[in-house]
């Protein structure tokens, strides 16, 4: 067995252990938990119409509360377009 395969197996084992622990520590679906109460979800549901005027809570999060994230998404799209044009420019001629 080469060193590269060995390193890949070790990495995969560590990754699998992390996934297993993550699945075991997840709290049950739909269960109300005082300790891990999702304050931010409740805040957005309560205040989105007042603060942003939008009926669609998802849009108010995407464009108002987390607008910076949407800027990153737009940058990803721009990079994808630039990469495709760069790759296919040679074939066009």
């Amino acid at each position: 067995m080469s060193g590269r395969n060995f390193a890949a197996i070790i990495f995969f084992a560590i990754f699998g252990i992390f996934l297993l622990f993550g699945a075991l520590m997840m709290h049950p679906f739909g269960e109300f938990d005082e300790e891990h109460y999702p304050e931010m979800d409740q805040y957005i549901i309560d205040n989105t119409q007042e603060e942003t005027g939008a009926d669609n809570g998802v849009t108010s999060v995407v464009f108002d509360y987390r607008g910076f994230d949407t800027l990153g998404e737009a940058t990803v799209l721009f990079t994808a377009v630039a990469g495709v044009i760069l790759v296919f420019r040679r074939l066009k001629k």
Partner: protein
Amino acid sequence: MSGMSRIVKTITNVAFPFVMIYGLYVIAHGHLTPGGGFQGGAVVASGLAMILVAYGSIWVVGKIKEKQLSVLESLGAIGFIGLAFIGIILLFFYSNYEGSFFKNFLIGQDTIPIFNEIGKGLANINTAGVLPFMNFAVGLKVIAGLFTIVLVMAYATRIKEGK
């Protein structure tokens, strides 16, 4: 890729306006109904891709150039970032205005009363401050970006299909 048969072109001509109207509706009502700039832009770009498949990339490239599309995409990006920066720029003109990057400056502040009147009320098309404008900017960007990708790919592989 050359154009397809007359049947496909006729069906495309019938279906194209409905696809366009649905996509633009999703963009324009992004702050009221499910959807938004990204989703509606993808719908409109799918309609344009349908035109591209039915009529062939050579016909489409004769109608619209890739540079015009990149101008459209840049307009969308500049509009989006410009709207985000207006939230900061207003700080220089109003001393008691609480602004930041991506501040929704049309609603939720009492410093500029004219702006605050626009976004009042619920379930109307002119609510939510700058969110509809941001949806339009992102929608323009997604339409131009996705159609540029499809057009460049289709036009680059036209040699193998035979002109």
